[in-house]
């Protein structure tokens, strides 16, 4: 439905360069990246609120680079939702209908169903200054829905909500997307939000596209070190290639005094013996055990527990190798498996299928 090709633009000293991605009709595409990476600029370009220096934006196969925002039929929900402060809830929702020249009475009849469907049918007469965070979200969604736009640009619209309400709105967004066959382009730096809502993800960093594709592919196979950091990989260690076998690479990691066997992935670069690489692994892929003897010496490191941060049924465990305090390993541990305590010697296993190389 939406195709962005080589999108390039400048805002002051910051530039977005050659960003390309596609969003299928009825799907949710997330632009994921840290604050200040250019996600909002991309969103505003798609909305027609910023002029491109180069590149094309196509909606339903038609180039819309020169189309005014009011003609694009693309709804935009900024971070603070921008509900019009001089209007009541119903006037906010009916704004697009009023602009199109519909009489006030007809507007209010048209918005009733949408408002009721979003659970705000009872607050239509209220001033927007007297709404809760959740109600504001619903009013903004209703306003966009009533405008009849089938593409919605959501710029971190849930960032100011507390966790419980955020999850409630996630479900609401998914429900109305299916009910109205909407297409979302959503900006967030929250990985949980991205994974819950998205079908596809683009990782943006420093105004550049690092990776785009199916969310599971992006999450499990980040294409670069930066992309891995953005999708939440916690552990990175420098290592040296010691052996290059048919299906595996043998690595040595001096900081952990450990050797690893790593599966070669399709399309991965050809590493040479003696070449330096960075090994990455998620905290929840590490297996922590107090047993000292493990079958096979590969992919295991002897470590000492530094700190344990309990989080209900699980715990985040920080570990170090010997006296080295410069290399800290983060592991997520179900407390029922092996209760550990600071100072305890443990063995950490790195499953070969979960190790990423950069």
């Amino acid at each position: 439905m939406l195709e962005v090709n080589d999108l390039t633009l400048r805002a002051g000293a910051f530039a977005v360069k050659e960003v390309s991605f596609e969003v299928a009709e009825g799907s949710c595409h997330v632009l994921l990246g840290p604050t200040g990476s250019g996600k909002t600029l991309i969103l505003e370009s798609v909305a027609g609120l910023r002029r491109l220096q180069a590149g094309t934006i196509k909606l339903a196969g038609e180039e819309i680079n020169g189309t005014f925002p009011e003609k694009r039929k693309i709804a935009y929900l900024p971070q603070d939702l921008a509900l019009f402060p001089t209007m009541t809830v119903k006037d906010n929702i009916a704004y697009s209908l009023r602009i199109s020249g519909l009489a006030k009475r007809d507007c209010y009849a048209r918005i009733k169903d949408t408002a009721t469907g979003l659970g705000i049918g009872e607050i239509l007469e209220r001033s927007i200054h007297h709404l809760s965070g959740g109600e504001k979200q619903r009013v903004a969604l209703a306003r966009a829905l009533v405008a009849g736009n089938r593409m919605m640009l959501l710029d971190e619209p849930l960032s100011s909500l507390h966790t419980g309400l955020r999850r409630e709105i996630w479900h609401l967004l998914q429900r109305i997307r299916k009910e109205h066959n909407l297409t979302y382009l959503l900006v967030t730096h929250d990985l949980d939000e991205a994974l819950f809502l998205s079908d596809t993800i683009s990782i943006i960093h420093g105004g550049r596209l690092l990776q785009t594709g199916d969310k599971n592919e992006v999450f499990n196979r980040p294409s670069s070190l930066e992309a891995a950091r953005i999708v939440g990989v916690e552990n990175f260690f420098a290592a040296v290639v010691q052996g290059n076998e048919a299906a595996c690479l043998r690595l040595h990691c001096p900081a952990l005094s450990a050797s690893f066997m790593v599966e070669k992935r399709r399309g991965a670069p050809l590493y040479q013996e003696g070449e330096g690489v960075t090994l990455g692994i998620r905290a929840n892929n590490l297996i922590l055990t107090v047993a000292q003897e493990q079958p096979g010496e590969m992919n295991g490191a002897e470590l000492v527990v530094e700190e344990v941060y309990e989080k209900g049924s699980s715990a985040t465990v920080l570990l170090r190798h010997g006296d080295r305090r410069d290399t800290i390993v983060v592991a997520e541990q179900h407390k029922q498996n092996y209760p550990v305590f600071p100072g305890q010697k443990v063995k950490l296993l790195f499953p070969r299928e979960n190790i990423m190389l950069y």
Partner: protein
Amino acid sequence: MSFKRLSITFAVSVFLIYAVLIISLYSFYSSEHLLRIIASSRALYAVRLSIVAASVTVLVCMILAVPAAYALSRYHFVGKRIIDTLLELPLFVSPAALGAMILIFFNTPVGDWIQGNVQQFVFTVYGVILAQIIAVLGIAVRLVKAVFDEIPRRYEKVARTLGASPYRAFSSITLPHAYRGLFAAMVLTWAKAVGEFGATVTVAGTIAMRTETLPVSIYMRLASADIEGAVGSILILITLSLVVLYLSRLIFPGGGYVRS
């Protein structure tokens, strides 16, 4: 002395400076004389001319200031910084100099043609209005720009994506949002115009019952050693300004530029 008390002392001191000046007027005050001045056709003419000229000035200034201030607040364009700097000209250049600049302009071929074929400004009521406009326009634009600067652009952006043209987004979203601030800017511009003297006297002169605004009237009475008459005109001017400022506070009790 605590910081709070010290700052309140300064606030009271500022009030006292003006209070002492106002109270000192009573040394030359007699209610009988004041009533006679107020009822005089000359004073009534000065009041009427001051109100009418300042109101026309505000109207013209706002017609020019609102779109100009919006452009300065919202858009980037060549020469924006120069225009922005020029707006402060009336603050730095004395009103008499502004008036002299207007007189010099009317001595150029273009100015001469305007005087001969469009409208005579020098030594006329139109000159009073023109002098006031030149003296307060920059400040009016600056005040209105401050109002638009306070209103986030994202409201207009969202309105555009909901189908509004740039003009419709401005008129349906920004203008209603700004009306308190625009009203405050109008009141301040009006007050500044009513009190304008230097440019007015340079362009329109001191012609009794013709170009005699209240400040000009005060000057003329002082020049002819009519102290009681000057005191009467000063009291009328102060009362007029205070009534307008009080009424504006009554309409928008909270103050502030932008409706939040």
